[in-house]
């Protein structure tokens, strides 16, 4: 292929990074699952679309944060930015009876622009519909869960649920894109120097 006349038909989005850790003040011994949700025009070309991490316990240091450092590495190809991949993270851990219950769902779009990004996702779980059910669910260790964790990546039908916020999960992404500009999608802002991307972090709410 002559490189000068190379006309791409897809662009590539390489995502690597890690689920660094979480901040769940009330819970311990948590593990997390992740999966990607993306549109019709997207296809993963390599890497793992889903994953499940080790169980981590809180450190003894003052921060008492949970660290997974669970690597993410996936490459997508796409023809259309519509349906840009989202990562859905769900955190699970044992309750007081030792039952595995969900501790939080959260989703965030994979960053658009190349560079290093840190994202902190607030996590939430669906609430029981009534106090009695809350009690029985606690007793039986079967908390309400989403039928599909991917629900949190879409807006449809969310109006029927009630959720409670739980904690935060921090992710770090390193984004490399290829041929996006050639296909007419410019996600790098010209005003901001790449260094700005590196230094920019999002602060968790209220922490």
């Amino acid at each position, binding site marked *: 292929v002559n490189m000068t006349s190379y*006309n791409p*038909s*897809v*662009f590539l989005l390489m995502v690597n990074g890690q689920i660094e850790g979480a901040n769940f003040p009330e819970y311990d011994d948590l593990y997390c699952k992740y999966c990607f949700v993306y549109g*019709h*025009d*997207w*296809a993963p070309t390599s890497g793992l679309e889903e994953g499940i991490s080790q169980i981590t316990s809180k450190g003894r240091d003052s921060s008492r944060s949970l660290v997974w450092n669970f690597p993410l590495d996936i490459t997508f*190809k*796409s*023809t*259309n930015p*519509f349906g840009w991949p989202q990562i859905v993270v769900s955190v699970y851990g044992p309750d007081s009876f030792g039952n595995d219950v969900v501790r939080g769902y959260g989703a965030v779009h994979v960053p658009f622009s190349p560079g290093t990004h840190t994202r902190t996702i607030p996590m939430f779980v*669906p609430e*029981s*519909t009534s106090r*009695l*059910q809350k009690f*029985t*669910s606690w007793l*039986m260790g*079967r908390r*309400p*869960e*989403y*039928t*599909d964790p991917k*629900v949190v990546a879409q807006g*449809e*039908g*969310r*109006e*029927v*649920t009630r959720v409670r916020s739980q904690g935060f999960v921090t992710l770090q992404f390193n984004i490399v894109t290829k041929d996006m500009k050639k*296909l007419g999608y410019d996600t790098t802002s010209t005003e901001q120097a790449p260094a700005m991307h590196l230094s920019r972090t999002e602060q968790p709410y209220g922490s």
Partner: protein
Amino acid sequence: NHSRFFSDHIPSSKMMFPHTTPTLSLVVLRKRALSQYAWWFVFVGVSLCLTNQAETGLPSAEEAYNFFTFNFDPEPQEDQHKGRLKRRPRRGEGEGEEEEEEREDEETETEDEDLFIIDQSARDFLEVTRAECMEYSTRVQREEELLFTPSTRPVPAYSKLPENVQPRYLEEEGLYVGERPPVSLSNQNILENRILIIYKFDVLFLCLHSIAVALHCSVELGVLSISAQTLTSKHMNRYTVGIGDSQGDYQLDVDVSGLVFSHHPLFSREHVLGVRLAQLCDQQLSRQHKDLNRLLSDKVSGLNGLRNTNEYRMCFIRHTRRLRDAEQEKDRTLLKSIIKVWKELKALREFQRFTNTPYKLYIRKCVEQASDELEQEAEVQAEVAELRAEYTEDYETKMSGYRGQLEEWKSWRRKEKVLKKKQKQRKQLSRDEEDEGSEEELGEEPVKPEAPEKPDLAGLEQQVRKKAAKIRRRPGEPVLLPELTTAGPVTPNEQCPRGELARREDVTKRSLYIKVLYNDKEVSRTDSRSLSTDFRVHFGQIFNLKIVNLPESIKLQVIYESIGSSSSQLAEVCVPIPESSVLTGTAPSEELEFSSNQRVMFNHEGVGSDVPFSFAADGSDRHTLLTSAKLSCCVSWAVGEGGVPLAPPTSQPAAGLHSGLRQRDAIACIGASGLNDMKKLRKWAADSRLDPNDPNNASIMQLLSVAVPDYFRLEQLQEEFNFPSDGELDRSRRFRLLRLRSQEVAEFRNLKAIPALEREISEKVFEDYECRLKEVERVDAKDHIDGHRALVAKYLQKVRKSVVNRFLITKHHFILSDLVIEEEIPSIGILGLNLFKLAEPKRPLKPQRKERKKVTAQNLSDGDIRLLLNIIRGYDIPVRRPNASKPVGARKGSRSYGDPFTSAHSSQTALQGSEWPLGQPVIQPFVEVSFQRTVLRTSTAEGPNPCWNEELILPFRCAPSGDYSTSSLQAVRDEVFINIFDEILYEVVEDERERGASVHTRIERHWLGSIKIPFSTIYLQSRIDGTFKVATPPVLLGYSKERILGSEGGYDAVRSPSEGTFLTLFVTIDPQLVPGDPIREKKFDTQETERLLLACELYEKDAHRRFPDRRCVTTVVDMNGKTVFVTRFIRPLTPPQELLDAFPNSPQETMELVARYVSFIPFLPDSVSFASVCDLWSTCDQFLTLLAGDEEEHAVLLCNYFLAMGKKAWIIIGSALPEGPTAYVLTQEHSRYLIWNPSTGQYYGQYDTFCPLQAVGCLINTDNVWCNIQVYAAPMRMSFDVTKPKCWKPFFSRTFPDPGLSSVQPEYLVYRRTDQTAAAELQDRIEKILREKIMDWRPRHPTRWNRYCTSTLRHFLPKMELSGGREVSEEHRVDVLIGCLISGFPLHLPFSEIRPIIEAVYSTGVHNVEAPSVEFALAVYVHPYPSNVLSVWVYIASLIRTR
């Protein structure tokens, strides 16, 4: 020595302070005389002078030096004095004089002492006095003298006015007085009072002047009012926007009549003189018109006549006389200069020897009569007398003054004398202070006044006469009246010298025109006129200017054109804007003078402009003239029709003046807020007529043209976001694809990775879709054999589309359970059950099928899904007829009896062979499963009741899109064909000798029957488990039921329900897929009452609670997507009459026929047509029109027919095999209940073991719905007596009676007779297509058709139809079978499309016969029933010729 010193220095001290105030110097002098320390005071005085009198000049440097460096004795008491002195400068300036006086007194006292104690030290002179303190009252008093506090009380009018003057109040007179700026009354009063005091003396004077001019009562008010006027006018200009905006049409007429040059560069010298002469003459003429001389003379004489010695009058007379004298003098000089210029002109003409100008001066002499002389004499006398009186008066006043002065002087002298005497006395006292003091008192010596000169009255007369001679014509001298004519001859060109000729030629080349500029914009211009030789240009053009904006300026530009050179502007003349009362016709023409300082020089006779020239030959007497001319023009407002002046209203006299300013100032015009309002800005721009070509206006014009649309836009930015136009978007294949996908159009719903670039999308992508769209409209003759069916398909599409849209909306409604899995609150029963489960054996002896883990369809891909079929056993499979073996045996020839050789089951053969003494061949059936063209088969079993117990695994590929979502899986229309074949092995050994060594067999298989299971059923059921009736052809050539062996030829009119072949199967999908969620039907809109719906909900809920696996239906969704109570669908409807007439004597057969008719209506499951959509119930007429429907429609129609035929009929809602949830029809015949499968037309007795109906949920008829509350749901084990409340729970009960629901069904059905010819055409078409297909399926072998057999079969098929599919007598086979081995069967199908027929034929596998001599026979018969219901028979057979 001190005194000497002082006396010596008196003059010098005097000299030193030449500029000090007299008072001060006086003080100094006095002190000097008193004390030897007095010089200090002098110093003080000086310092006072220096500090206080800034306006006085300083002493010269030398004097100052002398004074300060003079050798004074040092003074030890300096300090004390200083202490005293320091106080002095603190005093106010105004008090200085009084202070001095005070001090004087003090000093005098000390001096007095001093006089006696001469030689005392300085200390002795020092007196310590109390600090001076002024009493408060005195101070206040003094302050009052000095300070003036203006009162705030209003000033009475009389004090503001001079005497005998009445104030005028303009307001009261009805005149408009502008609003004054607000000034508080107290401030005004203060100011008035102040002015009154300050200008105490001037005020009257000022008042005198202001009273006439300003018309205001007091000076200060006048001042105020002036400022007020300016202020208000400014205010008005700035803020009165819109006033004077021209609303009407105004017209200005600019009349440019002509131009006369008073000097032109091309003037010759003669012209210069001529013009000067003409001017002088004009002047003279105008003076003569005015005749001021006479006027004043009359006045003087009149005044003289009065002779009233009023001083004022005298003064006036004198003034008038002086004016008259000046006028007379002017007249005379004018006359003189006219004559002089004329003489010069004449001289010049003579000198240059040609004449350029036609000027000619005549002087008329007008001799006065004698009275003239007398008059003049009297005049002189009067003047003399007057002068004399004047002079006398003057002298007298002078004299009186002189006398006064003289008196003064004399008194002074006397005083002086007295003083001198005193001085003498003083001298004796050797003191000269006294003298000094007296001298001071006397002051300077007045000059001795001189006596005024006595006026020379005698010389007066002489004086007067001399003056008169100078300014007046001498008596008797004729009055000279100059008269200028232009009738003189001008020397023709040819007689002129070269220079003049050149000048004249130059003149002819010149031409002029005038541009008319209105508001600095050229509006028109005159024609170009050449300069005439007399330097006059006549234009005579009137321009009518229709004006919209108010005039700011009207200018006329005189443009100079000369041939051969560019035009240049000579001058610009501003024409005053006329008052609105100046109207065309009445306005006088104005002459506007202008001049140009352009320097023009010529090398010919032309004098040029701004160039010195001389008339004299020697070049002296140089003149410099500038080009100047008079433009006569007239600007006036036009008069419109009916004499209406087209002028702006007169009420705005200032508008013309200020309008320019106002119009120019955009901000003032529109206001600061208007800057945001583009509309206002635009209006302003339109009003002020901005020149769009002016670069200064470029920005604003751009702003106006771009940013100010003429309309109001709701979405201002919409256009910006419309990056491509809509048409462009529509044309783009990519966007179209994306849009169709998002609309979830079936073809594109699951497209992945739509290419990013347009060029990568081929147009073919849309072909299918467009075809489908077109199909809706197109009458497809191939697939839909007749037009009616195409219409039906079209209608179905429409319904489908609208219903799908409806469902798409409801699909996006979510309830909590869709999103969140939540444990139900456990009931005691469940807890108990769970506890019971704990006690279950871990490995039960009879294990039950466990639920497998369900897999969400999203994660699936091709190859993941498999279809598992467990073929367990078969019952009652037809066996080979014994006579069928005869040809085999005959064919083989070599064998004694033609048992087909079965190698695999030789032992069985032996066994069975013993059972069939007639040598009947054993049946060797196997099952072949084909799904999506994948074919698998079981092993071959033996006998009519074989047991295979084999599992077949078929791969499942989804629809072309590769989408495994629930909706697409549901929409899969593929069917699983389960075929039973008989495998026949033929030994094909030709040679008997090889029998022992090799085995050559040919396998033939004969289709015996099939089961079709739609994939959607498997998917929705997730498993199908049970024994199914195999659809066997009515006629199987060569085979017979085993039972026939026993009772051949005679069977009951009502056949045994168990008759038929059965197959026990277990079908499932691996992995287990999550079936699509049933649509929550409750969400649809409805016309049922709320109460009924509520009751339905409760009823269904209750039923579901008690029997979760039993279906209980009370409400259904109709074709319009509305919820309808189910009993509304049940209504007796008459079946087609021809069906009723077919078997008039046998109601049983009629029922069968009706059931057959219903079953001929093609079956189309709702879940296929309405993907992932719930059951839709169509009414019977809709059903017959659509000719497609699922079990419910069939059941409803059949039930309605039965009801119409007077049967007791119900609809059974239950589940059956293999279709799952379904609807059957129950009829009661006496005490027997018959269960009808409406889709097949089959019926079963209640106790039929092989009845496919497995469970009964509820019964429905016209009146009520009964829910099955019996322990068992299987028909065999339950009672159908709905009157038993223990068994059936009615919906409508005594507590909730039937509200009398009307039916949704029509009153009767209209049947159309089906066109026989159309059916025949269809028959031919199907036959043709099938023939081609069979040939296609046999690509490696020639396909021969046996015409004879085909025709035989064709005759046979209608009989089949008439017999209702029952086996008919087999005699037809006899003639067919001669010489042939025939295998084949008729297929019977309802007709919907051709494709299913093809599939059915393919699945039989008849085409697979590969014998070289095989021949085929194909016959198709289409039997038409009313309303286009068609019954299709296909008889397909293979024939192998026997030798």
